[in-house]
């Protein structure tokens, strides 16, 4: 998606969380090589608290949010303790979030393209 959309009006935040046993700060730094785009800012959080904070934003009830991709248009602000609901989102959590929102890079790219025009 980042390769197809070169807009300078797009910024991405990759928030790396400790979900699996092997996840730690060191592995998060290695993982940054998967997203070498200069528009991506990388963060590491040592707990799953942030994932829990994002649960209400996408109506996820089973576990802290992870493997999710949330799109916010210009002007949206994060005012309260929890993040705002995204204009669109996709995920890789089969069975836990709507199937029609399973990650499809092309569709996600189209949605973002529409917002960055």
């Amino acid at each position, binding site marked *: 998606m980042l390769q197809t959309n070169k*807009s300078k*009006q*797009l*910024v*991405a*935040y*990759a*928030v*790396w*969380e*400790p*979900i*699996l*046993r*092997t*996840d*730690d*700060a*060191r*592995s*998060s*730094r*290695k*993982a*940054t*090589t998967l997203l070498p785009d200069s528009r991506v*800012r*990388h*963060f*590491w*959080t*040592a*707990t799953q*608290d*942030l*994932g829990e*904070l*994002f649960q209400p934003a996408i109506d996820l009830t089973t576990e802290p*949010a*992870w*493997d*999710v*991709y*949330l*799109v*916010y*248009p*210009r*002007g*949206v*602000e*994060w005012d309260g*303790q929890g*993040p705002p609901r*995204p204009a669109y989102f996709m995920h890789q959590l089969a069975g836990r979030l709507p199937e029609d929102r399973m990650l499809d890079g092309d569709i996600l790219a189209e949605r*973002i393209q529409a*917002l*960055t025009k």
Partner: protein
Amino acid sequence: MKHRFTIGSALLAIVASACCWLPLLLIGLGASAVGIGAAIAPFRPYLLGLATILLAIGFYVSYRPSRTACSADGACAVPRRRWLESLGRGGLWLSALLLLSSMLFPKYGSGLVRVAPAANPVETDALVLEIEGMTCAGCEPAVEAALARVPGVARVEASFDKQQAIVSVSRGSILPRLALSTAVGTLGFQLVSVARAEPSHELPLAGHWVGDVPLGEGRTPTLAMDLDRMGSRWVGEFDVEAFGVLDYPVHVQIAEQHVTLGFSAADAEFQGTLQGDKMSGTIDFDGRKVEVEFRRTGNAVFSAQFLQLEAAADDSTRVQSLSANGEELRARFNADRGMTRLVMLLAPS
């Protein structure tokens, strides 16, 4: 007209050998060749051939009998400017010399510039760098100059024939492997792998190890791993080709002869004893234990990609740590309110 042939052949001769001298020149100026030399190399024979043709034409035009009518006493219908002719012929011979030099540069060029050995040699480890892309012996000094600039490198010897470079590094130094890859990359070449040139007797665990793992039901895949010490840390990667597992990290702990190896990607752990070139023990697969014996078959060889990942792992500037409530992310999110934002929550593994 003959001067055009002179100039043309001289320029072509210079360009034809650019694959060899250009990287050296750019490194000297602190710039990057970015593959320019390598891009020109395939055309070198054609450029040299064209330069030769132009030079031959230039010599013919210059030395052929003059068509200008002259009387016996030297008076000519069109005055001959002998000084200009001499200058032109001198230029031709200079171009011929330049062309010959360009043809021979790959042979002798590597002897012109060599990295001088350290004045006060210290104890060093030798690493073998497998490099792809060197097109002639003239590339050797450029490779040596680029690698010599990497912090911790004491001595470099590049070989076009072997497509490799031997790098001596201060023993125990934390050598940034990524810097080696970057240095080679600025010349348009690619660092393929890094390996110890000789076994380290101080690091009996270092090397390439192979063992068959009996999983039952007729399955006995081979597990191969490379272990070595980089600075104060052990680094390792393992492969199980039968399962398509390549270059996954190994976590190493060693206390005298007792070794613990963590294969976290496979959710397995080995505990055993090191005895020379053998390591015997058990692998625990989530509660199920199997006996395994690893044999050392050579020196550790790490792919450039693996080393880049290790270098990234050591780079603390790559990620910003967040507090539990994500206050820093919220601040960033709001600061970027004039843009479309994609928030990705991901697990590194």
